[in-house]
């Protein structure tokens, strides 16, 4: 791929390179999404998941691009080690390690950001130099990406699970859980944390005051009178007294 004059990468203020993305290759006139990519550069983050020189930070990843689709797409810049998709940029969170697939919550189907870790630093640079007018393609003949009815039927089919496999998951989790519990109780000497006892507030005040004295009676009436007066004024302002 010899870069010609019009095939320069487009870099915008902020240091992001704009890549374009097309859903399928048969439709040459289709509108393109713009992916903004940049090397990942957050010093504070000591996470080993995102090595600074080899991680590419990608903005605006459409919902139909799953981890595997992105891996495929970005492999043209060099071998991809891992892909992490998130709803918004931020520190990487450890995934719920203990959870089996039946119990993990489904993520929202929204636009996301991706952290792509290449095996070599060269992958990041290749991506950053990629010209805008050569779009990446999501769904190709070799690896078609299914959306719409196909996808939903597949989803439905996947949602039918065998009770035995579910039971296995449960058993596994409960075993781990019980073991953890035991460990904790050994460490803490089976002391349960103290429950904060917020004493229910007793309304002693009210019962005392309601000892009817004529003064408070009048005050009550007055208050009500004022409230009513205000109510009327609002209604009058809205011309709510016209019976026609």
């Amino acid at each position, binding site marked *: 791929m010899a870069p010609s004059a019009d095939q320069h990468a487009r870099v915008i203020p902020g240091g992001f390179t704009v890549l374009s993305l097309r859903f399928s290759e048969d439709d040459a006139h289709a509108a393109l999404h713009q992916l903004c990519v940049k090397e990942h550069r957050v010093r504070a983050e000591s996470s080993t998941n995102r090595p600074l020189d080899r991680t590419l930070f990608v903005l605006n990843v459409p919902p139909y691009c799953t981890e595997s689709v992105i891996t495929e797409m970005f492999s043209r810049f060099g071998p991809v080690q891992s892909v992490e998709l998130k709803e918004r940029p931020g520190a990487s969170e450890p995934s719920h390690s203990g959870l089996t697939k039946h119990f993990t919550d489904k993520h929202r189907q929204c636009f996301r950001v991706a952290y792509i870790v290449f095996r070599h630093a060269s992958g990041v640079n290749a991506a950053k130099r990629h010209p805008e007018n050569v779009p990446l393609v999501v769904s190709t003949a070799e690896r078609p990406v299914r959306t719409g009815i196909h996808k939903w039927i597949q989803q439905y089919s996947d949602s039918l699970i065998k009770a035995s496999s579910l039971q296995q998951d449960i058993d596994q989790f409960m075993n781990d859980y019980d073991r953890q519990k035991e460990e904790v109780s050994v460490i803490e000497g089976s002391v349960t944390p103290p429950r904060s006892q917020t004493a229910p507030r007793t309304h002693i005040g009210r019962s005392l005051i309601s000892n009817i004295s004529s003064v408070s009676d009048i005050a009550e009436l007055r208050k009500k009178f004022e409230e009513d007066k205000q109510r009327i004024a609002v209604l009058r302002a809205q011309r709510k007294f016209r*019976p*026609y």
Partner: protein
Amino acid sequence: MKKKRKESTEIKTEDQMELLDISQNEEENEKKSAKQSQDSKRKAKGTVSDDGVLRPVKLSKKELYKAPTVEELNQLKEAENLFHCSILKMQMEELLKEVALSEHRKKLVDSFVQQITDFLQCVPESEVVELDDISWLAGVEVPFLLVPSTAKGKFHMEPPASISLVGSYPLGTCIKPKVSVDLAVTIPASILHPMDAINQRYSRKRALYLAGLARHLSFAKCVGSLHYSCLHGNRLRPVLLLKPPGNDSSKVTLRIHAIPPPDFLKPSRFHPQKNNIRTEWFTGVPNTQPESSEPPTPHYNSTVLGDHLPLSHLQFLSAISAQCPAFGEGVALLKVWLRQRELDQGAGCFCGFLASMLMAYLLSTHKVGKTMNPYQLLRNALHFLASTDLTENGITLAKNPDSKAPSLPEFHAAFSVVFVDPSGHLNLLADMTVFTYKRIQHEASLSLTFWDDPTVDGFQALLMTPKSMLRTYDNVFKLVNLVKLQTSCKKLLLLNELMDHSGNYVLTALPFVLSLLQRGLGERIHLLVHSLPQDPEWPVDSAPPKHKDQPPLSIGLLLNLEHALSVLERGPPADNPKAAEFRQLWGSLSQLRRFQDGAITEAVLWSGNSISHRRFIVLKIINHLLELHADIPKSCIIVAGGQLDDVIACGIQNHTTGEEESLEVVQSYDDLSRKLWQLKDLPLSITSVQGAHQALRYTQVFPPVPVRLDYSFFEKKKNRLGLVPKENNPCPCYIAPIKVIVHMEGSGKWPSEPMAIRHVKAAFHICLRELLCNQHNYRCHATPGYLDVWKDGLVFRIQVAYHREPQILRESLTPEGMLIYRDNAEAQALELETLHKPFLTSTLHGLQQQYGCFGVVCRLAKRWLASQFLLEDIREEAADLLVASLFLHPAPFTPPSSPQVGFLRFLHLLSTFDWKNNPLIVNLNGKLTAVEQTDIKNDFVASRESLPTMFIVTPNDKKVSVWTKEAPSVQMLQRAVMLAAESLRVLETRLDSGEKQDMRVAFRPPLEAYDVLIHLDSKQVPLLAKAVDPPVNTFQRGTHGGQPYASGGALPVIDYDPVRLYLSELRDAFGDLALFFYDPYGGTVIAVLWKPNAFEPKPFKTSLMNARRVKVNDDVATTVPNVEAILQDFRIIGEGLVKRLELRTEKWVV
């Protein structure tokens, strides 16, 4: 959204424009005059913000506890003791201010009256001509139906003997709107002849004299418009309506009555048993009978007699009102009350004059005191009306009637309702039917119950809410083509009555037709009412309208749902003498039948397989009786309504509207519930099984229908897990999972960590699955979140719940190891599902048992919300509560007993409720006391800002309004209000038109305002057949006809709706940029509205790049939505479902 809001306000302003124009000048003037009285209120006004929102009142301690003055004490005490509460007193005062005539208006009236009086004094005299020669009138018509045309006598014009104001204006009881001032013009004695009482001669001369005045007035410059009308629909008493010219024309109407000199004819000649119209003259057939056998003409007599009395009545009323300072205001309130109930106009009405007379009666018999205030006067008048049956025990104002005056029994013999005037000769209620009086009584007693209920806003219910026929009565029938009533008169042999009513066959036949219906409908109805024939109005140069030209009459019914839908009319035993009567009434439909209890009786059996069919039995009865006894063909009776049910029709074959289907679901659920309770070998026992789905409270718009599957239509998943949709087939039929919450007992075995609880619940699902499968052979599918059970062709989704789980979700540990509770969304959502929903479902299930048509009204209301794309904002439960409030708090109506009236009131509630300043309190099971309700209102005002836009309170949910917390937003509520008002208007005009019209209009959403329409492939829309306008072609969706299997078989495709999946993906992806609207019941269009603020260019940010594109200008990067790519994504995400995109506006495409 902004765009649409603008639209709504525009509509409003257009409507109000006229009103404003009219009232503007006057308002200013009124302000000046009422300045003094308002000064005191100014202070209160100062505390009110401009946006019309209530703020909590803050009074300092000093203000609250300062020493009261005597005056203040009295005022406070009066307000509390006499008015129940001070607000009602203030409200009534405000209302009286609104309706009272301003000084400015009075001046205008006075000067207009003076001008007209002066002008009338100089009517030129004319030649004496024969009575039937009307050539001298030249261009002006006589306001009289000259039937029969012959009349003896002579006539000439002469200036009036006197002109004087009569009626409400001089009495001071005249109120806005429609200010009409009565002017009595006395016909000089020389024109009349003592024998004129006979054969309408007097009435014709009166009409001629009025025509003469009209001709003269047509030359006057001070007259704006000149029309004829007649007094309370009585064609023998025409009046002349005058309006001032120009801008003042709407401010006053002058009614000119021609009257004879006060003592011209002796009242004794008009005794109700005397005859004053001769049969020979009326029929034109020579009469061989002696004159003494002529039938009495009570109505004609009272018509002529009534003309003699206006002046003396005015004197009488003036004398009474002078004794009681609040008389005028009391009458004004009563008039407003009558007006809101459409009782103050037309033939046989209870007009303002009668209101004054009634008040005078109460005063003169000391039923009310002279020092009472207007509020007390109204209350006592209503109490009197509610408790006194004037059809049985008439009353009289005459203190010492002369010896010739008829007695009360004589009056009762001649008239249905009796209220005798001070002279003792005239029955003021001569024209009123029994049915109208019963209606007044019903209204009065209903009003009193609202008044006595401290939780009802009595003021609104009594004086502010109009009760139109359509919105008040369960069924309304229109009697069109009134000319048919002429044949009824013949069939019912009503010649004498027809003569008495001077040929007005509508008024003649009406009471007879109605009592026929009353007999036939019997205990099916609580009340039968009719609209009052309205006074016609026509220009002076055109002929008077014929009787047949009247607009259709409406007949309204309040149904007694216990009996109204019964298919059997059981009569007396065959040997009972009453059997003949029964047979006579029902004709050939009456048959001898033997019943299970052994009795053999006459009976009528109506057909009706479904409830929706049986709603038409009342119509069938009306049709049958009117055709049989009154010769009124079916085509003359049109139901206003009934057509609405179609939009929620379920079965095509049986024409059911879902009641039966709902019942079937509930029965199947009851069976499941029983089986769950009886399950053995569960590790923990079940503590409750509760339905948590709208189908289990009869309010699912289209209740799930049991299906039998066509297996060849589906793919089968391995391991016999269940069926899966085939890719190339149409989307299979939608099977809704019916949610059931099963609570398991608390026990130490439950873990105390949220994640562990989830796993234990999942284990329970598997456990239940095994048991149900083994013990009852149900096909089940367990997932971590729920267990689906395939039973009787329905799917129940069982969700196990643990009562401590929400609590545990709120627990968290502080770094110090303290256990604290923090509310969070997850816990709330769980509570909503496992606590609030089941509770609401069982409560509303109970409401359905109490009010038979609660469910169907809910379903109609929700069908409307869905069709207008509102059901996602006003969610199912909120809508159900709105409808529930119509049944629990029906004031000023009675609880609806037909789908249509309930639906109309739902639209009215939604469009008029003041959501900004009031919580909607739905007092389920009557658990909230009046004090609690007041507290709720006060709390609401105090924290309005932080509460949801639509705030619905129930006994279990006083502070949060769980169902409306998330939605609707202000804008969506505003749109809902606008759409409801518009739909109500369209529906009511259509229903009122007396023709069969397309009612679905109100269910078709306006699509103009949207930016993009996504048209869907109807093949993939599972509920296509439920669309408002169902398509001609439907698709095979994998079901067989025939009885579904009770258990076993392969697990069907459950809860698979591609459109919903598509919508959720669209909202996930583009929720920040656009709003998506859809009718979940068979809609084939998704409407998209771009959010305007999302389209402003924003500076480039990593957190704000989704679906946007970058533009660089002078080294500054900004982003805008990438519209083309987004539209492309609409297609990609909805592959196979989206047919085409329609771009409505180009403006966003950059």
